[in-house]
């Protein structure tokens, strides 16, 4: 029991976030692996997307926001 207590104290930061807390928290903040909107092969370069659309003769769908939809809140 004493050994466990000492190990726990050694793993914790002075402020109290233990390695186990950190890993759990870090994992919980990963974006979900399966998000429908992320299945769409988005491009973030307008030139690249337009060039691909032109080559493949496809229409261009633009999701234009304040803050990039792939990298903002």
């Amino acid at each position, binding site marked *: 029991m004493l050994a466990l207590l000492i190990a726990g104290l050694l793993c914790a930061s002075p402020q109290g*976030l233990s390695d186990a807390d950190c890993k759990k*928290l870090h994992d919980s903040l990963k*974006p979900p692996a399966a998000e429908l909107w992320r299945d769409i092969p988005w*491009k973030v370069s307008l030139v690249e997307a*337009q060039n691909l659309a*032109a080559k493949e003769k496809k229409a261009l769908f633009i*999701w234009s926001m304040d803050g990039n939809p792939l990298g903002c*809140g």
Partner: protein
Amino acid sequence: MSLAIDQWYTRRQKDSEGDYYRKICLQSPQNNVNSTTQGLYLATPDGKLLGFTNNRSPEWVREMLKKGLAKYEPAEAALLENKNPDPNFNYHLPEGGLILTVTSKVLSGYQAAVNAEVGFFQNSIGRDVLWLRKEEHQALVRGELMESLKRRLAMYNLIDNTRGEPHPWTVEEIKKLDLTLKNGVISGSVHLSNETGSRSYTCELRGTVEVKDGKVTRLDLVAKGPARGASGCTTNSMPKGEFTLAVACRLATGQDEADKVMPQGAKSWFPDYMR
């Protein structure tokens, strides 16, 4: 073909990419390119608008796409070139730098959601990236944490961006920035607060840095603690009173298109962001 952009940059760009985007906007209800042009557009490769909506409900978007695609006649189109990208709105990671992916979440403190949309925001994960300069990367390899990196992390990433774009913290709002790197472990605490204390975040941080062959191969970091208030557009549906905010950083894999997005903080002023 699907494109996700931050219109704040694109509508301002004085280059062929900006010209192309504005041409599409001017055919839509968002035809004032001096203000926000956010929305969902469908266009031909040569820039003819086929459809537009600024309603993000699946039904509205599906209907817009259906009607727009019905009008679309595939044809030859010139490839857009951008030989002289506007340097004021095209930023690049400095050579030898690093990209960290940063996520955030409000863990507790919300009142009951009044509708599904508010509930969505209450459970959302904020996303951003943190760019490191070569010197900061090299310092990490040596086992050191540069003050500039600590400051950038605090100002631009220790924020609640789960409901949109908050303002970064100012240098004056950094009340405590105590972070150390020792034996591959980052630890410490940070206190951020505006003048009145109506917006604040006090967090503990802990993380791991691993290095191999002169490069950082792993950087996992978490921050957690009590926060208050919000800023900018993120005040909508913000938690009332104290809430728990967590932030996590990890090395970008480079495999995700989102890794190419410029840091949100660069919007303030890129040279200032990277200093």
